[in-house]
């Protein structure tokens, strides 16, 4: 041991070295003069969620969110509030009318992002969100939440590229699956047009009447409908008169090939879907009562959930989140009608 105060003295040397070093040694020069300087946040960094849309021309129509409400249910502090958009007739539009996130409650946990099956919600890395008020100012509404896919690509290039690739692959897979399915759909449609004198061009690829791109139809329905409308137009029958006829056509489910469920279209209303599934077994009727988003909120897809209920494997009838009370009530009614409840 040395003299008394040696430890103190050594400590002072360390302090002095740090003090002097803090002027030119980069290792010890750690202060960042915010807000003049800012550190670059890492790509993974997260703050609050935002909603992704694809087309700049129409953010609302091209947003990925289908209002399935999975995130609303899973968010641990329950800070998301969603109301599904409906048209005047009350038909669900598969997008939220209201999507609020209370960022004073949000704990930036990213669970909403992880559970969203549609890659619709992602984490921002903007950390400068202070506001003057602490109530309404801290609730973010749909317009503030919507950000473009380009923006997402800009802040998180690696992650966004992977998501884009996945979505593209999914879309291709879907298109491939739809192509062979189109034929049986067309055949099934034939008896549906008794008024049409020339049923041959029903599924003609060169349809004269194009269905608008944003109409809520699956490719096979689109193909059938456009062919059907062309025929109707050619034969001079008013489409309005033909429409109710088109409601009855679905081939009996026993003959319907797997994957050919005309009611499996989120754009149709509940009554319409049930009509389409009128002559079918209970499992199909149950399926028609679902919201048809295949969002997996229930833990299955729409088909799987309906089958599980029909076989008795699933007893909870309130799992379809996007279908809301409408679906739950209808499921109960159908089960009662079938004498299973």
């Amino acid at each position: 041991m040395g003299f008394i105060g040696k430890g103190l003295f050594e400590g002072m040397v360390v302090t002095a070295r740090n003090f002097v070093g803090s002027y030119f040694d980069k290792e010890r020069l750690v202060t960042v003069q915010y807000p003049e300087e800012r550190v670059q946040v890492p790509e993974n960094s997260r703050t609050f969620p935002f909603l992704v849309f694809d087309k700049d021309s129409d953010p609302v129509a091209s947003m990925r969110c289908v209002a399935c409400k999975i995130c609303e249910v899973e968010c641990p502090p329950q800070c998301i509030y969603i109301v599904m958009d409906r048209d005047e007739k009350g038909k669900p539009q598969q997008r939220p009318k209201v999507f609020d996130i209370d960022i004073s409650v949000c704990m930036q946990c990213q669970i909403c992002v992880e559970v969203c099956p549609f890659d619709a919600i992602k984490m921002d890395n903007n950390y400068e969100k202070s506001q003057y008020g602490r109530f309404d100012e801290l609730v973010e509404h749909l317009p503030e939440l919507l950000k473009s896919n380009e923006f997402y690509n800009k802040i998180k290039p690696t992650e966004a590229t992977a998501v884009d690739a996945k979505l593209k692959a999914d879309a291709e897979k879907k298109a491939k699956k739809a192509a062979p399915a189109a034929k049986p759909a067309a055949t099934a449609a034939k008896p549906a047009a008794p008024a049409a004198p020339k049923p041959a061009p029903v599924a003609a690829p060169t349809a004269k009447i194009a269905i608008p791109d944003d109409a809520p139809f699956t490719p096979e329905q689109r193909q059938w409908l456009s062919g059907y409308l062309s025929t109707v137009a050619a034969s001079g029958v008013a489409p309005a008169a033909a429409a109710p006829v088109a409601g009855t056509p679905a081939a009996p489910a026993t003959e319907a090939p797997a994957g050919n469920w005309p009611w499996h279209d989120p754009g149709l209303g509940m009554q319409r879907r049930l009509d389409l599934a009128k002559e079918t077994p209970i499992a199909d009727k149950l399926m028609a009562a679902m919201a048809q988003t295949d969002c997996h909120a229930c833990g299955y897809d729409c088909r799987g959930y309906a089958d599980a209920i029909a076989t008795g494997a699933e007893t909870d009838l309130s799992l379809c989140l996007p279908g809301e009370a409408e679906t739950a009530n209808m499921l109960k009614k159908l089960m009662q009608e079938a004498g299973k409840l």
Partner: protein
Amino acid sequence: MIQPLTDAKPYTLTPGSNGVIETQTLEVSIGPQHPSTHGVFRMDCVLDGESVVALKPVMGYLHRNHEQLAERMAWLGSMPYTDRLDYFNSMTNNWAYALAVEKLAGIKVPDRAEYIRVIMAELTRLLNHSCVIGFMLQDLGAWGTPLLYAFRERERILDLYEAVSGSRMMCNYMRFGGVRVNLTDENLATAKDIATRFPRFLDEFEKLLTNNEVLLARTQRVGVLPKELAINAGISGPMARASGVDYDLRKVDKYGVYGRLEFRVPLGDIGDVYDRYYIRVLEMRESIKILQQALRDIPQGPHIAPEVKLRNFKIPPGDGYGRIEGPKGELGFYLVSDEGGKQPYRYHVRPPSFINLTILEDMCVGHKVADVVVILGSVDIVLGEVDR
């Protein structure tokens, strides 16, 4: 004679029959709003002059209903809440909870994930111990110097956390059956860099503190916790080991891959504040050893067990207790799952801070009130965990 402010009778101090002036004990409430109580925590001290006669810790100011909240939420939902228990060490909290759930559900964790968890936990130990020492010296009156040096190093680790998990402190990184994102080579290089640099910082830190006469005078033979008392009171972590209790869950349970890693468990012999300081320095050195081995051995492979579902995750009825050696001591989660199994029927946290704090009075009685603050600093508490 003391002149009173009122016009009552003058107050005189008269010696009693034994010739000693009779005085009263004084009750002083330290906290809940006091910088040295490390948060909203109150100590009801009874003082005789400057010496402590009795001391009662008063907790509950930061109670957030953590356990009840968890019982109303899906299993995954409480993972981000565990970050907020001991907000210094969110990684180890995540691990303890994930471990309990994995035990209960019988999930096997892939090797790479186990190594990633070890790396994250040891980094957490580094940042916790260095900051705790900093805080303790802050309470001693060293102002910011050691604390800010510790914070400077901690920042490097937090930067790595942010790059990996997305957040500096509220990591929410572990998932049942693994971790949320894989470590990239870049992340591993950063971790290696931290592991090689840290010893240099520790040397400097020790030069500043270990032989410092002021520190020695204020901490040696202060707040002694005898070995028997430590065992009887269920103390764990560095506090127990400073009193000479050879108990480290990494050695006892060998959870994760700790069985494959080589390290020693430092033990103190007196159990005073100085021992508790020095134990932490030694533990950091061991942590660096573990880190280097883990970074060397980390295998390739999946970072999460593929069969674990994120949503609709259900656990068959049963109960389980998962525990790990957190930087502060034994952190355990006791979980009960019942019919349905969508959320815990009972969710209990065994927080090391809380249990280590119960012994505060025994360590403080007889010391000066200024020492109470130092002793509290050496216990290493975080109120988020004490009150939950």
